[in-house]
């Protein structure tokens, strides 16, 4: 398969509006009939019930919902960190879970970003960013070059030799994003990556994520509990409701890209947020 990052037509096109989920009309991630049941001390917890979702190549999907609605569970299943109780998930036609076992081959093009940066304190920023490349046997020089390039991309130029403890929270999260991008993933899964940041930094990171998405052209699944953030970033917003966790609605966001902070004040944006908030309150 070809990585969209290398296709010239996905390169940043300033001002160009992208039609949601219509890059090539082909689905890259396919979730069908996924159930997740946890065995808790007081019986079973139905975390996810019959989740079906088809995500197109290059699409940006936001998963929103209250805490406990199963959005993180769904993301962990997609990431291969948690087996589904039933149902199937395929990436590029390849099943990512095979009989409860993770199919490592299917994950070669996945990048993960967690709520915590999870940088290794014993590695410098550059070594952290290049860790996935090291695991893939890329040489030292090439790793270094890529790390430098990515530091530039995520706004950490000159910090290659710093240790994670020398960085602020926002900077660490940037480094974590750079690590996830290091091997040009075609699917980027993000679990509330900016949840621990203050509002100003968060706005800034959202803008940067948008431009990274435009440049890298990867498919993104982004978990958040902020409706504003979800709408701002996404091509489609998937709303989940708890007990049991299931998809309540899928809302397209036909706002032009690139979006700016002014977009959030537009009537169109406000209307989408209003509808989603209403749906969230209804349950």
């Amino acid at each position, binding site marked *: 398969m070809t990585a969209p990052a290398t296709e010239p037509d996905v390169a940043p096109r300033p001002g160009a509006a992208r039609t949601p989920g219509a890059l090539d009309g082909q689905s890259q991630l396919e979730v069908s009939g996924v159930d997740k049941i946890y065995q808790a001390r007081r019986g079973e917890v139905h975390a996810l019930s019959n989740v079906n979702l088809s995500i197109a190549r290059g699409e940006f999907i936001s998963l929103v919902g209250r805490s406990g609605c199963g959005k993180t569970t769904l993301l962990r299943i997609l*990431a*291969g*960190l948690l087996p589904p109780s039933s149902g199937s998930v395929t990436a590029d036609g390849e099943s990512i879970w095979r009989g409860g076992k*993770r199919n*490592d081959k299917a*994950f*070669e093009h*996945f990048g*993960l970003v*967690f709520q*915590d*940066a*999870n940088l*290794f*304190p*014993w590695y410098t920023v550059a070594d952290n960013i290049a*860790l*996935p490349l*090291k*695991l893939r046997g890329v040489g030292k020089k090439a790793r270094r070059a890529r790390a430098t390039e990515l530091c530039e991309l995520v*706004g*950490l*130029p*000159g*910090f290659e030799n*710093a*240790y994670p*403890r*020398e*960085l*602020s*929270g*926002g*900077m*660490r*999260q*940037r480094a974590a994003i750079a*690590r996830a991008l290091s091997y040009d993933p075609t699917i980027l899964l993000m679990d509330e990556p900016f949840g*621990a*940041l*203050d509002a*100003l*930094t968060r706005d*800034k990171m959202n803008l940067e994520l948008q431009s990274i998405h435009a440049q890298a052209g990867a498919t993104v699944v982004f978990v958040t509990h902020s409706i504003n953030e979800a709408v701002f970033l996404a091509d489609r917003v998937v709303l989940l409701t708890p007990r049991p966790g299931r998809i309540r609605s899928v809302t397209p966001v036909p706002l032009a890209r690139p979006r700016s902070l002014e977009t959030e004040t537009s009537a169109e944006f406000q209307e989408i947020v209003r509808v989603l908030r209403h749906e969230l309150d209804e349950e």
Partner: protein
Amino acid sequence: MTDLVKSSETTAATAGPRPPAAKDPDAPVQDRDTLMKWLPFISTPILLVVLIGSWQFAVSVIGVSEFILPAPLDVWRSLIDLLSGGAVWRDIWITLYEVLVGFLFALIVGTAVGAVLGRVIWLERAVQPALVALQVVPKVAFIPIFVIWFGFGTTSKIIMAGILAFFPIMLNVMLGVRSVDRGHRDVMRGLGASKWATFKSLELPSTLPYIFAGAEVGIVFAVIGAIVGEYLGGSEGLGHLVVRSLNALDAPQLFAVIVLLALMGSLLYAAVTLTKRLMIPWHDSVAGVSP
């Protein structure tokens, strides 16, 4: 770590090229930081002077019997005599040998056992009562038995030093193996890392601080084990020299040997700490609290 992520001084992140660990260049704060850094180097000599001063005071002014408390100068002379006499060097070497062999043995076995018990939960549960029992038993009580089994030579002391050093190392490693951050594990799993890669890039480096924490306690315990072993069933070594000095009622020499033992203990501890500083410069216990 996690609460630091939540710190809000993040927006200035991109501004300017790298100011490493940039704190506020606030002059008064910097002054206080420098002072804090050098404080022990100022306070320790002062404490030493106060200690030796009051010691001398007790001897010459209060008039404590020199059988009980010899004057600092007498102890110093005795120490010089010992060191220039030459015989003491053999005792120093014997004790050092017992401590080092026992400690290295404890380090290797303790790390291995700790790593296994940390990972194999059922095994840890199975042997836990036995471990607790072994831990609460005053282990120096076994020295006479070791002397019977292994003789008056160095072996029984090595075993004592090793056993005393083993427990803190083993327990720390066990804790360390279990304390590998779950988020870090998710990163490696998400990348489909092999077992070996996970060990090399994650488990080993994150356990190293625990190994060193155990080793710092372990080296102190090893010294205790060797000395007590020599007290109770020795024919040579610094501990035995203490006993010999006591039997000869040579108080200055007794004190001098204790000074030697204190020096040996401090130097060994310093060696472990220095190794730690070189091996895990990134760790908070070495680098200080993050900015």
